[in-house]
């Protein structure tokens, strides 16, 4: 065994102390007819060979593409301090801080996380983390049902499709989930249909526990959050705002428009995309809901000498204490990712975070303008932050051909939202501070060529266009 300490003599000594001949004697209680067949797995692989295998597998992923893909997961520049600190064994090889006297590091870091995210979302209570944005949103929906003792939740179709699918799974036990449509055309196209929301909230025989809307929404558009909150509260329901944390440096936070719960994906705060996780489910609420919020909470207290210290608290909500009456079954969470987010925020600071958000917005506007210049228009007219949808003929083919040219042209919307005819030809494109003006110029040139069969006129691409056209591996 590669990591074990025992020499044959050690094993012998332990067996002798137990008065046993063989370690098999310790497994004698497994009934003979239930013993396993031999494990059919490859032989042990020395680290040298294993590292080559892993490097080879990683190399078969195409992470060399110049990417405009966001759709809920965003590439950002992360100060190296984040990962270097995360690699300290005292952080990542510790467990849940059940023994506070030897866990003050983890406990204080969680309290600070709760405080930092509390600032971002402008809310009172932040849980120590959930699995991801989708499960945090699902837990928020269940919270609204518990708190209002109603069993119907409305979710905007502007919420990420994976979140809506997850909601459906979590609410399958007899709770009702209805989708609020988006406006199909006009200035508000792609944002929540407020008239429909009002109608749905007015169905008095089916009272609503909670309303869930995202800002920016899945299509990158800004939603009228204050108005949604107002309508929701007028119906006696709770409002869940699904938010992206970097955007909160510049966009109005959920607390400012009266959200009762904020949920979101914390991945943009210094966490690598890594094909889906581990990420960071952000869940926050008002003080009024503190006993309904699931997940661990760390609070400030003192020790017996009066020294300031941190401890897990309000534990009566949790599964190991309350068992079947707990607020959720969550146990293991995403603590290390909450730590990553905290270190990211501390390192980059409030001004840095604003610069990240604003630079993404600038690059996205440049991208939109450059695409408009070659005749690629947005699907929706409304304001956006750093992500927007465009319409191209046969989006799937265009997307594939751009991969051949070294570009990941965002998301094919028909794959993510197959039921929405207004998105049939859509590509969802995102920019962040990692998107360079050169990336944009080369991408737009390649797009033009793929669409028209020839390089663009009047777009300054220089050699870049040819380079991009020929290069599979456009390097960054």
């Amino acid at each position, binding site marked *: 065994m590669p990591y074990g300490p025992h020499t044959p003599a050690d094993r012998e000594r332990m067996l002798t102390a137990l008065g046993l001949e063989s370690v098999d004697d*310790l497994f004698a209680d497994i009934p003979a007819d239930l013993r396993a067949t031999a494990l059919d797995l490859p032989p042990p692989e020395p680290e040298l060979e294993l590292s080559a295998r892993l490097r080879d597998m990683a190399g078969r992923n195409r992470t060399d593409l110049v990417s405009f893909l966001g759709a809920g997961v965003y590439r950002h520049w992360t100060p190296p301090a984040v990962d270097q600190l995360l690699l300290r064994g005292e952080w990542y090889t510790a467990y849940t801080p059940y023994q506070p006297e030897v866990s003050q590091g983890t406990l204080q870091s969680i309290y600070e996380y709760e405080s930092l995210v509390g600032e971002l979302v402008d809310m009172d209570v932040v849980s120590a983390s959930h699995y991801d944005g989708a499960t945090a949103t699902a837990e928020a929906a269940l919270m609204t049902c518990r708190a209002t003792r109603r069993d119907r939740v409305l979710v905007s179709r502007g919420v990420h499709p994976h979140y809506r699918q997850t909601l459906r799974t979590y609410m399958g036990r007899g709770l009702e989930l209805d989708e609020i449509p988006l406006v199909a055309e006009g200035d508000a196209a792609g944002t929540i249909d407020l008239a429909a929301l009002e109608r749905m909230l007015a169905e008095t025989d089916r009272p609503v526990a909670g309303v869930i809307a995202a800002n920016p929404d899945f299509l990158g558009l800004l939603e009228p959050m204050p108005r949604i909150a107002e309508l929701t509260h007028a119906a006696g329901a709770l409002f869940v705002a699904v938010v992206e944390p970097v955007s909160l440096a510049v966009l109005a936070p959920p607390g400012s428009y009266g959200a009762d719960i904020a949920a979101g994906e914390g991945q943009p705060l210094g966490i690598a995309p890594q094909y889906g996780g581990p990420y960071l489910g952000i869940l926050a609420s008002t003080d009024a809901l503190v006993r309904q919020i699931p997940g661990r909470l760390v609070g400030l207290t003192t020790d017996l000498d009066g020294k300031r210290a941190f401890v897990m608290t309000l534990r009566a909500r949790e599964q190991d204490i309350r068992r079947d009456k707990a607020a959720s*079954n969550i146990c293991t969470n995403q603590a290390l990712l909450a730590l990553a987010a905290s270190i990211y925020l501390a390192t980059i600071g409030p001004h840095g975070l604003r610069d990240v958000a604003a630079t993404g917005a600038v690059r996205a506007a440049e991208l939109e303008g450059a695409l408009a210049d070659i005749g690629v228009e947005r699907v929706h007219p409304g304001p956006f932050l750093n992500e927007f949808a465009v319409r191209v003929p046969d989006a799937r083919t265009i997307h594939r051909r751009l991969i051949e040219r070294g570009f990941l042209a965002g998301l094919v919307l028909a794959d993510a939202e197959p039921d929405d005819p207004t998105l049939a030809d859509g590509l969802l494109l995102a920019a962040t501070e990692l998107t360079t003006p050169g990336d944009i110029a080369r991408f737009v040139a390649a797009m033009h060529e793929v669409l028209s069969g020839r390089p663009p006129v009047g777009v300054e691409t220089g050699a870049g266009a040819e380079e991009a056209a020929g290069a599979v591996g456009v390097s960054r």
Partner: protein
Amino acid sequence: MSVTGEKLQPTLFERGRPGRGGGKIPHPPKDALDRLPADARRETPPALPEMNEPDVVRHYVNLSQLNHAVDTGFYPLGSCTMKFNPKLNEWAARLPGFAELHPMAPDEVAQGTLQLLWELEAALAEISGMRAVSLQPAAGAQGEFTGILMIRAYHQARGESERTEVLVPDSSHGTNPATASMAGFTTITIPSADDGGVDVDAFEAALGPRTAAVMITNPSTLGLFERRIGDLLGRVHEAGALAYMDGANLNAILGRFKPGQAGFDVMHFNVHKTFSTPHGGGGPGAGPVGVGERLLPYLPTPRVLRLDDGTFRLERPDERTTSIGRLRSFAGNTGVLVRAYAYIRAHGAAGLCEVSEDAVLAANYLKSRLAGTFDLPYDRPCKHEFVASAASLKARTGVRTLDVAKRLIDYGFHPPTIYFPLIVDEGMLIEPTETESVETLDAFADALVEIAAEAERDPDMVKTAPHTAPVKRLDEATAARQPNLRWRPMAGAEMPCPD
């Protein structure tokens, strides 16, 4: 309330000073956000601390040193499996090809990761004797939820929606009953038999046309293998119910017992236990779920599929209408799964068998060293962990398990899990794992024996332990009565200076 003591740190908020930091991101033009409607914009910037990088680094390095961790010392936390986390696996998960891959990238771009996931599914199926595995659940508890939802779907498909009860033994993890509730089931708790095993007759009495499932942890949370498991599984299936195995303790039986072969219908794996992915101060984990024939149609979506040409792809939404759906966004905690894959490859079949053998041998050896000093309520070989009790010690000296646990901190050890499972009076659940040496096991046993002697000599000293930790025991009552869950930056006020 003062911030003193060796390494206790002021909060980030107390350390920050307006004007510190910068140099990370170029400033965009001043009018960068002018195109956004004014009412959508934030009026007051978030009051995040302003810090320079050296202060941030010092803050987190000093804070880290307040933690006990596997990398700093023995961590015999029963049920949690605090074994060594191989460093190769940290390296592997950070390879840019894995780390930078976007979860919505098309399949053709993600072949390396998809192959890894597919191979990991196959390895877990082989280890568990299950037909197929989904890697999507983010943690063990979510794996349980997935399993119970599949069981619900199975009964519904057979027109047996009246099966609304889930049976769990009283020794189970709290997640089992909490999961059953979340999925809309009623939990029926079954008392354990005197030997610590399942009471088959008590289960039999509770089984019936309303029973949807039985959730069993095997080996149990007492570290005991359920000798009557074959009998129990037979009766569960006769009653038309399904059997869920909580795989939290799979690390004890690798290569010895395959739950799927034995007749379990579904189980979850805690890869942060059995397959050594780091616990991270509370997470992340990953909770893959394996199923037998009966539940195969209901696996969550998307599954990883291997095509005839040897390439891989993710299942499309709605491709398999019997699926219970999606449990979370994207494919799963892939970065965690990369580490688990590396662990399984590094060990191979022979190494995995040895993991369980050594874990079980170490636990039995340590248990034998404590005989005569602490009560050992179950007098039979344990698996990877065992329960000791300070009940007799408490009767003699007034020193409780909690006190013994806190005193261990002064000896440089993390306490074991205490007062779990709930059915043992003054219990401590001790799990040494296979990566601790005999010398460490002896030193830990010596410490516990010495603490028992201290309890006889000087009980007050033990009751007030720890004496050498950065903080003493905490005022948990005030923390719960007047919760302070968030730092309120003291605008305009003088903050206590750290240094």
